[in-house]
């Protein structure tokens, strides 16, 4: 069966994991995703999944993701999400999603004030989503992190709500919270569960040569749901 999920990867001026996301998707779907420049005001027709890749969209100046949130393509991404389309924000993509308020909370400077790049252990806290259905709840997976501002913060009411609605998709495993995130949150879902933002990089663990394949199930979940 040829999976038919159609994906687009948004390219901001200083995105730098756009190629990584595209090649991970291509490796799993056999199709090159469409690369969409941030100045476009519309997405290509028939897109099922939009990926906001990692990087430093605008140099991370002022606040990470703040300037990218205002780019013209983000209006189209929001409309896509409002229609129920899937959106995956990885690292800087997650930061852009919180800045557009498509996801609640913010990503602050890492508590230790240092950039962190290493493998980290995550717990899949929620397997009921288009992004995580091929994992089982409670499963431990290894993804790398590579960020300076991944310290998730939201007020208590928001956190309670996220947890109550089963919207915390990934947590740092005990002892692996590398950035000070409240309640060990590594990735969250939107209210309609069609938008996922996460700090760790699933696209960097889809090839055994690069240190693991735990990220594949995330993309395979999407292929299965959207294909």
């Amino acid at each position, binding site marked *: 069966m040829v999976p038919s999920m159609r994906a687009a990867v948004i390219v901001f001026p200083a995105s730098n994991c756009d190629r990584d996301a595209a090649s991970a998707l291509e490796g799993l779907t056999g199709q090159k995703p469409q690369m969409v420049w941030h100045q476009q005001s519309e997405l290509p027709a028939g897109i099922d999944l939009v990926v906001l890749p990692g990087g430093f969209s605008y140099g991370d100046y*002022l606040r990470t993701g703040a300037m990218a949130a205002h780019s013209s393509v983000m209006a189209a991404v929001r409309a896509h999400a409002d229609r129920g389309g899937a959106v995956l924000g990885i690292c800087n993509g997650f930061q852009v999603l919180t800045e557009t308020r498509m996801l609640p909370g913010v990503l602050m400077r890492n*508590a230790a*004030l240092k950039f962190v790049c290493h493998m980290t252990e995550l717990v899949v806290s929620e397997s009921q989503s288009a992004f995580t259905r091929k994992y089982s709840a409670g499963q431990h997976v290894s993804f790398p992190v590579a960020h300076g501002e991944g310290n998730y913060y939201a007020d208590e009411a928001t956190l309670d709500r996220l947890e109550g609605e089963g919207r915390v998709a990934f947590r740092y495993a005990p002892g692996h919270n590398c950035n000070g995130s409240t309640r060990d949150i590594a990735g969250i879902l939107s209210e309609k569960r069609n938008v996922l933002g996460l700090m760790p990089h699933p696209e960097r663990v889809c090839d055994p040569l690069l240190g693991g394949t735990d990220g594949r199930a995330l993309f395979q979940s999407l292929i299965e749901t959207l294909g």
Partner: protein
Amino acid sequence: MKARVFVTLKSGVLDPQGKAISHALQGLGFDGVGEVRQGKVIDLELAESDATKARAAVRDMCEQLLANTVIEKYEIELKS
């Protein structure tokens, strides 16, 4: 006209940078330093010469871009 904008963390939001500074100051032997908070100051040059209009414009800038009001608050100072 010039505007100076202060963007600081709302009280209750943890400020790791401020904490690190306070810690380092104590390490340097500065006693009696209590809480330290770090924020941003943004200086803008504006073509607008009317203070009311300028303030309104800068407020919009803060709401739309300069501050993330989930965790930050802002103050505006105008100087002509």
